[in-house]
C-alpha cells in the first residue's frame, strides 16, 4: 500500500471535507475582513491621488481584484472538475459548484467597476476592445454554467454535465481572448487605455491587500457554500447525522 496516496486524497472523503469546510470558512471570512480594512484604507484614504487621473483612479482597487478573482475562479472550477472527472471524487465537483456564484459576482463587479472607471477616464461607459469583450463573454460563460447547474435534477448528472461544460469553456477562453484581440486590433476600435506602468509602493501594497482580501472572501464563501451543498447531498447519511448530533449536543 502506497502511503502518500492516502494523504493526497485525505479530504476526498465527504466527512473529512465537511469538517474542514466548517472549520475553515469562518476564519477565512475574518481573514478577508482583516485584509480588506488596511487595503481599503491604503487604497481610498492614505495613498495620494494619481498624477494623471486624479482621485478617480482609486476604483482600480476594486476593479483589478474583481477581474483577477473572476478569471482565477473559473480556472479553479475547471481544475476541480478535472480532478473530479479523473479521480472520481464527488466532493471536487461540489467545490466547483460552490465557486461558481462568487466567480460570477466578481465577473459582474469587474464589468461594472470598469464601466464606472471608463466613464470619467475615457468618456464612454463601454467600448468593444478585446479585454472588455472577453470579460463580458466570461460572464456569459458563468451564467451558462449556473443555468445548466440549476437545470439538472440528478446530482450525478449535474456533476458530470457541468464538468464537461466548464472544461470545454476553459479551453475556449484563451481562444476567445485571442480571436477578440485580433478582431479589435484589426478594427482599431480601442481607445487609449490608461497606462498601469510602475506603481508606487503603497499603491501596490493596497492593491495586493485588496486582491488577497478578495481571494479570502472567495475561499470563505466557497467553503460555506460547499458545506451547504454537501449537507444537502449527504442528508441521508449516518456520518452527517452523527456530526450534527455531536454539534447540537449540550453537555
Amino acid at each position, binding site marked *: 500500500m502506497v502511503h502518500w496516496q492516502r494523504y493526497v486524497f485525505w479530504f476526498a472523503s465527504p466527512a473529512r471535507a465537511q469538517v474542514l469546510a466548517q472549520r475553515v470558512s469562518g476564519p477565512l471570512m475574518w481573514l478577508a475582513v482583516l485584509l480588506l480594512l488596511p487595503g481599503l484604507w491604503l487604497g481610498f484614504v492614505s495613498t495620494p491621488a494619481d498624477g494623471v487621473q486624479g482621485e478617480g483612479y482609486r476604483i482600480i482597487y476594486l476593479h483589478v481584484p474583481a477581474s483577477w478573482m473572476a478569471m482565477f475562479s473559473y480556472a479553479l472550477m475547471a481544475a476541480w472538475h478535472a480532478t473530479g472527472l479523473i479521480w472520481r471524487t464527488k466532493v471536487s465537483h461540489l467545490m466547483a459548484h460552490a465557486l461558481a456564484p462568487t466567480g460570477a459576482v466578481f465577473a459582474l463587479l469587474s464589468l461594472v467597476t470598469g464601466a464606472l472607471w471608463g466613464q470619467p477616464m475615457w468618456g464612454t461607459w463601454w467600448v468593444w476592445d478585446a479585454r472588455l469583450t472577453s470579460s463580458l463573454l466570461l460572464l*456569459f460563460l458563468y451564467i451558462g454554467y449556473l443555468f445548466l447547474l440549476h437545470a439538472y435534477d440528478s446530482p450525478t*448528472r449535474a456533476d458530470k454535465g457541468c464538468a464537461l461544460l466548464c472544461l*470545454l469553456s476553459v479551453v475556449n477562453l484563451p481562444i476567445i481572448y485571442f*480571436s477578440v484581440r485580433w*478582431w479589435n486590433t484589426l478594427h482599431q476600435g480601442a481607445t487609449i487605455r490608461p497606462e498601469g506602468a510602475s506603481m508606487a509602493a503603497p499603491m501596490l501594497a493596497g492593491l495586493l491587500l485588496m486582491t488577497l482580501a478578495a481571494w479570502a472572501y472567495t475561499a470563505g464563501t466557497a467553503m460555506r457554500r460547499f458545506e451547504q451543498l454537501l449537507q444537502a447531498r449527504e442528508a441521508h447519511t449516518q456520518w452527517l447525522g452523527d456530526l450534527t448530533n455531536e454539534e447540537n449536543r449540550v453537555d
Partner: protein
Amino acid sequence: MSGPTVPELDRPWWPAVRGMAVREWLAAWQRPGDLALYAVFFLIVSSLFPLSLEANPALLRQIGPGVLWVSVILSVLLATARLFQDDLHSGWLDQWLLSGVPLALLMGTRMVVQWVLVLCPVALVAPVVAVQFNLGGAAIVTLLQTLVLGTAVLVMLSCVAAALSAGTRGGTMLAVLLVLPLSVPTLVFSSLAVQAVERGAPADAELALLGAICLFSGIVCPWVGGLAIGAAVDG
C-alpha cells in the same frame, strides 16, 4: 459508471455506424420541410437588419458579413439544439450505450450527418442573401468557404450543448445560451475573412485559423459529447 455494464463489441463497428448514419439521413429527408425551414429562417433574420437600419449599399456591405454570420449561427443553433431531447425519452440513446460502439464515434457520426443536413440549405441561401448585402463574387466564395468550416464547428458545439441539456427543464434556450459564447471565435474569424476579401486582401490566415478550430473541435467535441450522452442516460 452507475449504469449497466456495456457489452464489449467483438465484431466490427462500421456496420452499426453506417446504419445509424443512414437512419439519421433518411429520417431527416422524410420531412424536407424542416430543412427548408432553416433556410427560410436564415433569409428572414438577415432581412430584418436592412429593414431596421438605413439600407444604403455602403453600410450593407460593411455589416453584411457579420449579419450573415449571426443569422447562420441562429439558424444552426435552433436546428440542432433539441437534437437529443426526443431520443433520450424514446430510449434510442440507451441503445447507443448498449450497442458497444464507442459513444464518441456515434456522436461524431450524428455531428457529420447534421452538418451536411444544415449546410445544404444554408449554403444554397447564403449567396442570395450575400447579393442582397452587395457583397462581391470573391467575397461570396470566401463566405461559402467559411460556411463549410464554421457550420461544422457550430454543429459540433450545439450537439454537445444539446447532449448536456437533454431531458432538462431548460430545453432549447439553455443549449443556445451555452453555445453562444463558445461560438464567438468562429463568428469573429469567419466575419473577418469575408471582410478581408471584400477589401481585396487575402483571407488565408483567417481561413487557416477557422480550419484549426474546426479540427480541434472535431477531436474534442465528439469525445465530450459522448461523455455527456453517457451522463444523460445514466443520470
